[in-house]
């Protein structure tokens, strides 16, 4: 019997999950207006202190913990601004709702929460009417 090895994805990046590349990955001008201090709780960078520029598949990239994926950066990064650029690209990604983890929220989130998390004021609330998914034709075992 002929068999074929299934495709193995070793490095899931944000583009793979979304099915497309985002313009702010290619154009630094699109992230210039991101205010990192305003985007984070407290008086300093808070959680962004732990975000730094990394590398994925030989490309500069920032890790999006909300979708467990790397977001590659394609424009030249000025020396000395590596982490700042990485943080701005990530915050833009989250605030725009493009992160795959955010896209899953409307359908799957079980508890009320803002769709765009703590990154955008006045974001709509999702998860207010969650029901367990029902598999068509499935019956619970006797006694349940």
């Amino acid at each position: 019997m002929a068999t074929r090895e299934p495709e193995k994805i070793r490095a899931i990046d944000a583009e793979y999950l979304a099915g497309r590349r985002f313009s702010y990955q290619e154009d630094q001008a699109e992230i210039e207006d991101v205010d990192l201090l305003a985007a984070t709780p407290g008086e300093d960078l808070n959680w962004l202190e732990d975000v730094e520029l990394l590398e994925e598949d030989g490309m500069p990239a920032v890790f999006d913990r909300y979708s467990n994926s790397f977001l590659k950066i394609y424009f030249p990064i000025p020396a000395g601004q590596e982490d700042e650029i990485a943080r701005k690209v990530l915050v833009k990604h989250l605030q725009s709702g493009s992160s795959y983890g955010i896209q899953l929220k409307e359908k799957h989130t079980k508890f009320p929460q803002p769709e765009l998390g703590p990154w955008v004021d006045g974001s709509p609330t999702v998860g207010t009417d969650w029901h367990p998914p029902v598999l068509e034709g499935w019956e619970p075992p006797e006694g349940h």
Partner: protein
Amino acid sequence: MAAVGERRVSYDARGLAEPHAEAPRVAEVEDGRAVFDARDLTTRQINLELRRLLYEEDVADVTVQNPGSKHSLGVGILTRCRITFEGSLGYFGCGLVDGPEVHVKGRVGWSACENMMSGVVVVDGNAGSLTGAALRGGDVVVKGRVGARSGIDQKGGTIISLGDAGSMTGFMMQRGRQILCGDVGPGLGDSMYDGTIYVAGKVKSLGIDCVPGEWTDADTELIERKFRIYGLGEPPAFQKFVCGKKLYNYDNLEPSERKLVL
């Protein structure tokens, strides 16, 4: 009605202890601020009232009176806001939060701020063991002492304790920072993979692969900044401890495993 001997099992897929609880709507709201008394409310009612105010009423500042050391209060808050608990919290307070700035005017039990993603939690009193367990980001400031294994599996963020810290503090720490102003028990930083621990007092003993680190200007800047932001006065002199990297083998891990600590 179930016949005698017939099993009737009901459950909620979310694992809720009170699946049909509703927000009690007892808060007094004025000028974007809310206050409610939690004395006669259950844990779930308190958390539902908090979420109702923050997500439905657009309140950004909530004060909870008489939290009564109930467990699991203020968990899963995923928005920018201010929450004040006028009293102590029990186990697992303020866990799984992303964004809030919380002030606990009392003590907290085990595992406060576990899995916190971002935000600020300031505790006026002592904190139990496992404070900041698996912390991912944000600042946890304990003005008293912290118990054993604080910052276990810490993957980011900053834990500050003005008092002593228990045994095995920073156990299996993977990223982030701890600033400990008092003495520390045995096994500091045992099996840590990364991150930095600053200690102003005496260290009973270092854990496996935890070694003194070289002080840099970035360390001074970090400590002075955190002390200034939280009004903690003049920082004392600290020793720095880091991972000796004898156990460090991230480079050999599969990419998906590496992501677990980012």
